[in-house]
């Protein structure tokens, strides 16, 4: 974990507004909202402890993590794991089962083959692009190849398989931290980890107000600048490989983002800004209120890099081992937990054109933004100006 927290308590709200803490963790930005500002310190301690525990258990970038040790033992005997990693494994396997393998934790080797073989900050440092030849896509071994004993917490991976819990572990951390913090401090808490939100406890009046960051600009405008959602890249646009800076789009091949930051970001600047933290997002972003559960947004234009002349991102189709065809730019889903919301958003990006039907089957409210900027709202997601 790379928590650098200087202003960890951020803008402590006065009276009606919840307290806000912003810091970096798990390679992204963490935001904590506490309905009762007087309890913000305690909630923050719980969140930090939860993030540290998840990082130690589930990070694939830390050689000393439990997950790394289990991955190293692939092909050998079963590995006993802690209760926390056991929960993370079960959450990942459940996500795979519920999405029929569209969200699959055995996608690890595929992600590595595409070039995401180190922390994203390090991947980003290979700008303007990684000139290594592209590696052939590696389809995932499949989640059913994982042998998991829930009673004894024994994990055995077949040779050549590694688990990547990135699709679910961060959301699990948000859920665990929100519920534990809310129970401990006795008021509403919202945890936002890189745009994946979990709310627990009694929310403030009117609920938690969340901007859904996306760019509605059409392709004729490119990805418009001045927004808070960080969608700065176009597939094959020849822009720099790192595309996080909302002010950098169309800034030329070297107009990337290290050293830049969104003016809306209030905490210490992580090397790569995911831009989930803007509490005062541009007004044109839709804003919704939620009272409980999870809300997640996944996209293909933020955490991107270039390799072999292609713009790649971290959402990988387990069936092909390659990035899915570009259909949706972002997908947002609200669900009973952040894990379920994030499972749905990731699956939708993988499923592409099949996503709307699949999402309708789940009954979850969803908002999908096509690569051309058009918006599709499903279920109980509030419609936007006739876009429905």
């Amino acid at each position, binding site marked *: 974990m790379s928590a650098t927290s200087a202003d960890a308590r951020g803008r402590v709200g006065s009276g009606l507004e919840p307290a806000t803490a912003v810091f970096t963790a798990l390679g992204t930005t963490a935001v904590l909202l506490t309905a009762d500002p007087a309890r913000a310190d305690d909630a923050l301690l719980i969140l930090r402890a939860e993030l540290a525990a998840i990082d130690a258990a589930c990070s694939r970038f830390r050689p000393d993590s439990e997950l790394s040790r289990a991955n190293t033992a692939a092909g050998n005997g079963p590995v006993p794991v802690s209760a926390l990693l056991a929960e993370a494994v079960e959450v990942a396997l459940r996500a795979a089962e519920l999405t029929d393998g569209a969200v699959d934790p055995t996608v690890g080797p595929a992600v590595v083959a595409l070039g995401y073989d180190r922390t994203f900050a390090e991947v980003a440092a290979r700008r303007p692009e990684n000139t290594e030849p592209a590696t052939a896509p590696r389809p995932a071994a499949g989640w059913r190849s994982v042998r998991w004993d829930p009673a004894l917490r024994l994990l055995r991976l077949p040779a050549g398989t590694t688990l990547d819990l990135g699709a679910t572990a961060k959301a699990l951390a948000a859920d*665990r931290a929100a519920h534990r913090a809310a129970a401990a401090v006795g008021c509403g808490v919202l945890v936002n980890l890189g*745009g994946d939100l979990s709310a627990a406890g009694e929310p403030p009046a009117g609920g938690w*107000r*969340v901007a859904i960051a996306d760019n509605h600009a059409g392709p004729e405008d490119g990805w418009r600048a001045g927004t808070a959602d960080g969608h700065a890249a176009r597939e094959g646009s020849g822009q720099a490989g790192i595309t996080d800076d909302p002010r950098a789009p169309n800034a030329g091949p070297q107009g990337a983002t290290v050293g830049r930051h969104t003016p809306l970001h209030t905490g210490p600047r992580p090397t790569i800004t995911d831009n*989930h933290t803007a509490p005062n997002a541009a007004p044109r972003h839709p804003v919704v209120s939620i009272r409980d559960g999870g809300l997640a947004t996944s*996209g293909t234009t933020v955490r991107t890099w270039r390799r072999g002349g292609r713009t790649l991102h971290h959402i990988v189709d387990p069936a092909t081992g390659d990035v899915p065809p570009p259909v949706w730019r972002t997908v947002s889903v609200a*669900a009973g937990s952040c894990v379920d919301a994030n499972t749905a958003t990731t699956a939708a990006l993988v499923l592409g054109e099949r996503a709307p039907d699949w999402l309708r089957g789940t009954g979850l409210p969803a908002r999908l933004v096509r690569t051309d900027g058009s918006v599709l709202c499903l*279920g109980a997601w509030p419609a936007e100006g006739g876009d429905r």
Partner: protein
Amino acid sequence: MPLPERPAAADRSVRDAVRRRERGLRRVGTTTRWVAAAAVAGTAVLGAGYAHALPGIAVPTGSARHDSGTSTGTSGGLQPAGQAPAPTSQTPQTQSGAS
């Protein structure tokens, strides 16, 4: 002077003895088969019951129960929130975006 045993009576006695022996053999065989079947069934039941105690024998995930009691729910598909998102024109407190 006693009369000699009639051959017919002697044959009947032998046949009865043979029938009794065969009936006994059938009973032994039936009992043996029942005992064998019960042993096989018992071994299977005990083996299944104690399989978890044997290191390296794990249930394939495709049929495993995922019942760790996580906050995400354990069955019945993806769970909805208690209340769907509602539109608001107020200033956001935080932001959800792609990552």
